């Protein structure tokens, strides 16, 4: 699945998007955050405080307990500061 990152999540990881293939036990958005955080130092830094990370599946906001099966694009970003 395609994963995209924005703002300081993107900067900390050092890339804007990538394709990942998490193992079957990674079922929810929260699981995916935990799995990504284990991929290296830059990921651990980006996801060091999971409760502040916001997520969207296919352009819609989702809470961490959302199942990721069937998602085309999952986005991770900090709280929004537009307007």
């Amino acid at each position, binding site marked *: 699945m395609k994963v*995209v990152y*924005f*703002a*300081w999540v993107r900067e900390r990881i050092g890339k804007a998007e990538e394709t990942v293939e998490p193992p079957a036990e990674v079922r929810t958005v929260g699981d995916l955050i935990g799995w990504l955080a284990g991929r290296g130092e830059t990921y651990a830094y980006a996801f060091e405080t999971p409760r502040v990370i916001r997520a*969207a599946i296919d*352009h*819609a*906001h989702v809470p961490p307990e959302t199942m990721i099966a069937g998602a085309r694009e999952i*986005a991770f*970003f*900090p*709280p*929004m*500061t*537009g*307007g």
Partner: protein
Amino acid sequence: MTIPVTIRLQEADFDTAREVAAMSAGRTDVGAVVSFSGVCRGGADGDAIDALTLEHYPGMAEAEISRHVEEALTRWPLFGVTVIHRYGRIVPGENIVLVVTASSHRQAAFEAAEFLMDYLKTRAPFWKREESAAGTNWVDAAAHDDAAAARWTKS
């Protein structure tokens, strides 16, 4: 009749007066037009900033704003809605965002504009980064913006 809705994300500046005038041009049913302009401040809490850079999530930003405009149309008797949000580098004094709402009476237009702004602040995928003499810094989300958006949630 279809209610005219304009949603634009753009790097370029916009003409607030033209957008406001367009809302009631050629029609006689509009009795109230409310506009809110968000402008880049030269400094927050006494620290001078040189510019803001707004990052956005293309695709989701349009979708999220559309969802909130649709909700505003179901909650208030509106005759038109315009939302313009800029991205890219913006210097102090320049426009960031514009919301224009039209209705037959002021209350609906005021409330809908405020509702849309409260949601743009907390739910639309935009992120501000400040440039100053000290370097660049991502702006933190403000708890009072979350509280403002929460007011509109029906219990």
